[in-house]
């Protein structure tokens, strides 16, 4: 499997995700945002961080960069795209994913380990997980409060496009287990073709037992098939 990680000025989880990909035996390349061609890849990762300092709206300016046109083309031809955290925000700004990410409800940056539930394991990204499986995973963001209109929300539900929801240790999905005010506790969504996944939690931070747990491993290994 070949992967590409897009690097914007201000990306800061680019190395982290590259390390995780390489650990999972991806052949990875870093791609600078000013490039106009993408190397041939099976997976494109838009990493976390603060592209352009999160100025204006998080993800807005990166969404206008040269390389993004190529990412959109690749997405439309079925290439797998994974947006993590700021990457998710960028994908919503480009329109590849619908909805948007607003400020966290408490207006503070939040970094902690939280739990999410796998809602659909019948996708290229999640097939190594069980449905309803609870993962413990790290979040780190200012704007993770997912919002979309009611039509799209219906579509997300009907087409099983919600990838993960925030929950507590025992799997309850409610206001108390919602860290950032996200609509219906949504933590990650697919596009309608399910070749694009955007998620606020950081799977690349959960692949090394010395640091945390290995709950993120199956996300990458699902893709390897």
């Amino acid at each position: 499997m070949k992967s590409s990680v897009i690097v914007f000025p201000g990306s800061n989880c680019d190395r982290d995700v590259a390390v995780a990909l390489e650990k999972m035996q991806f052949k990875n390349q870093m791609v600078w945002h000013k490039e106009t061609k993408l190397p041939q890849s099976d997976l494109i990762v838009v990493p976390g961080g603060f592209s352009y300092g999160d100025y204006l709206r998080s993800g807005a300016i990166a969404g206008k960069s040269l390389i993004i046109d190529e990412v959109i083309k690749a997405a439309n031809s079925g290439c797998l795209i994974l947006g993590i955290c700021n990457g998710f925000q960028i994908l919503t700004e480009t329109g590849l994913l619908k909805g948007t990410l607003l400020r966290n409800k408490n207006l503070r940056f939040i970094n902690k380990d939280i739990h999410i539930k796998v809602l659909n394991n019948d996708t290229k990204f999640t097939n190594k997980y069980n449905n309803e499986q609870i993962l413990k995973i790290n979040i780190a963001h200012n704007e993770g409060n997912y919002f979309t209109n009611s039509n799209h929300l219906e579509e997300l539900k009907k087409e099983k496009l919600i990838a993960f929801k925030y929950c507590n240790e025992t799997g309850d999905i409610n206001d108390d287990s919602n860290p950032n005010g996200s609509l219906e506790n949504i933590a990650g969504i697919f596009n309608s073709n399910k070749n694009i996944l955007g998620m606020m939690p950081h799977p690349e931070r959960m692949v090394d037992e010395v640091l945390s747990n290995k709950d993120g491993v199956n996300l990458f290994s699902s893709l390897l098939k």
Partner: protein
Amino acid sequence: MKITDKIVEKHGLKPEEFTNIKKLLKREPNFLELGIFSAMWNEHCSYKSSRIHLKKLPTKGKQVIQGPGENAGIIDIGDDDAIVFKIESHNHPSYIEPYQGAATGVGGILRDVFTMGARPIAILNSIHFGSPEHPKTKSLLNGVVSGIGGYGNCIGIPTIAGETKFNETYNENILVNAMAVGHAKKDKIFYSKAKGLNKSVVYVGSKTGRDGIHGASMASAEFDENSEEKKPTVQVGDPFTEKLLMEACLELMKDNSIISIQDMGAAGLTSSSVEMASKGSLGIELELDKVPCREENMTPYEMMLSESQERMLIILEDKKEKEAKKIFDKWDLDFVVIGKTTDTNNLTLKFNNKIEGEIPIEALASKAPIYDRKWIKKKPTKTKFELKNLKKIKIEDALIKILSSPNHSNKSWVTNQYDQMVMCNTVQKSGSDAAIVRIHNKDKAIAVSVDSSANYCKSFPLTGGKQIVCENWRNLISVGAKPLAITNCLNFGNPENQEIMGEFAECLEGIKESCNFLNYPVVSGNVSFYNGTNKKNIYPTPVIGGVGLIKTLSTPMSHKFKKENSTLILIGKTFGHLEQSCFLKENYSIIEGMPPEINLLNEKNNGESLLKLIDKNLILSAHDISSGGLITALSEMTFTSDFGAKIYKPKKLTNLFKYFFGEDQARYILEIKTQNLTKVEKILKESNIYYENIGFTQENYFEIEGELKINTKDLFKINNQWYNNY
């Protein structure tokens, strides 16, 4: 413009100092030159009140690659790895504008570290606020914490350790100290010393604006028509640009085009250019019209004194300009040759081809004033209270009082606002005795911690100074790290006051003794005087930042109980020292007497023996005992653990309050697999260590035989309330 006495005074220069300047120049300085003298000769840059005391600190050791005198200190951690670190204060700016003050504090210290060729891998902070009831405290706390997080999170370096304290002594003067730690290759370290004649001096980074032009510029405004327009402005941090600057510098450092490099910190262009020239015994000539400016019509005075952030000065090897510029272009940063090195030994400032100022470098650097200020020794104090005369309370209530107090409450409200995981090398986050960061791609790690004890230092500075170094050393030992070296940030009041100067001198003496004895040298640091208002100075608050090495990362040590039915051992002697204790302060508002004595021999022996036990894999968890005593430390070991503990009644010391709340030093609690007990005891006996078997771990409850029994989850809840209710 005629330089009047008033102008001199507004520049913070004493009349004798001005006379001295005229002697050194052999003439009157002009306005620009006066501004430059005032920047270089102020306390912050010249260390004029502290230098003779700082000289006494031990700064050498096998592990030291670079001691004080550079942008940051450097130590050797084996293989080809070096750790670069330093702490710095940003107290006054943070009081005026907490978010930006704290943010730019972090930005500044990060530049000190990556200037030397190191990639920053951790940020620490020590923040001190006034009493929680003080009307300003809440917004200062909010602003400072989000400022520190805002900068570190955005640039993508984990903020992993620190301390947050409240004490009314900081009501009008908070402390915001930030420490940065970086990793470099030993053979790729960069220094600020200039070398060679006619080398290009290059300005890189953000443009220069009228930010933070010191009190000096207020003076200048008085003599200007548009004084309103020129009000000094607060420095605003731009972590995004700093990220670009960091990546660009680290990229340029991969080859060998840099002769020397220096960040523009306090006194910006002035201090960076003077420092480079002074260390290289050269002159430097700047063409100020080339300085990239953000605002129109900036004067040479403003350019030289601006404290705009995210800027660096580089001296380049010949013919390297084109390649270097390419890198900075790629990162969308300014790159302009603004001058050259010369053989004149002068700082020469040109503007529109006219020389606007010319000052011998040595007048600004080595000939800057040094003061041996008068100081008085602190006399030991006696306590007036007698324990038996105090109102009776229950142990349980006293413990709850401590665990729910602002200073001992769980700090996750703060630390959850910091990205602690970015860079994916954080092995242990905030909340433990020391944080642990792995060296990228290696099986080794460093442990880091910052510590201070203002109450101890106030009551008896000599002991206080000793104590903070020991406490910091203990924190590193507790996570299984070998302590290597420290950096220190010395926050004090007005040095012209003999008592304050005494606090300074004696704290430093204490620090020196501990560092010497523990082979724990000082490799960098910063002094912040004049903390306080009018006649009210802050408590002496030296802050120690320590770095230790963990050679292999098999199982990192933490203070969380790990198993049921393990044996608990207390090492170090308990005398029951309650003077200056948290117990008396929180329960009776008594802050009296002497701080606990430090016995360096025991300190060293206990610590080194514990390290041996950890290395032999005989310890399940370890925790040092500090403020709040044994009972507080034990409670902390139950937090987020599945286990509690049952503690026996003490056999020797009969007063339970003294035993459980006393703050005697050099003590640790160890959790040991019961089957390993004989092995552990053998080692402890061989090393002549005093120890006691104090109990064992159990499920769910924290219990003291016949005295108290609390569910550990409830205890943790108590510990978590304060911030959420504030």
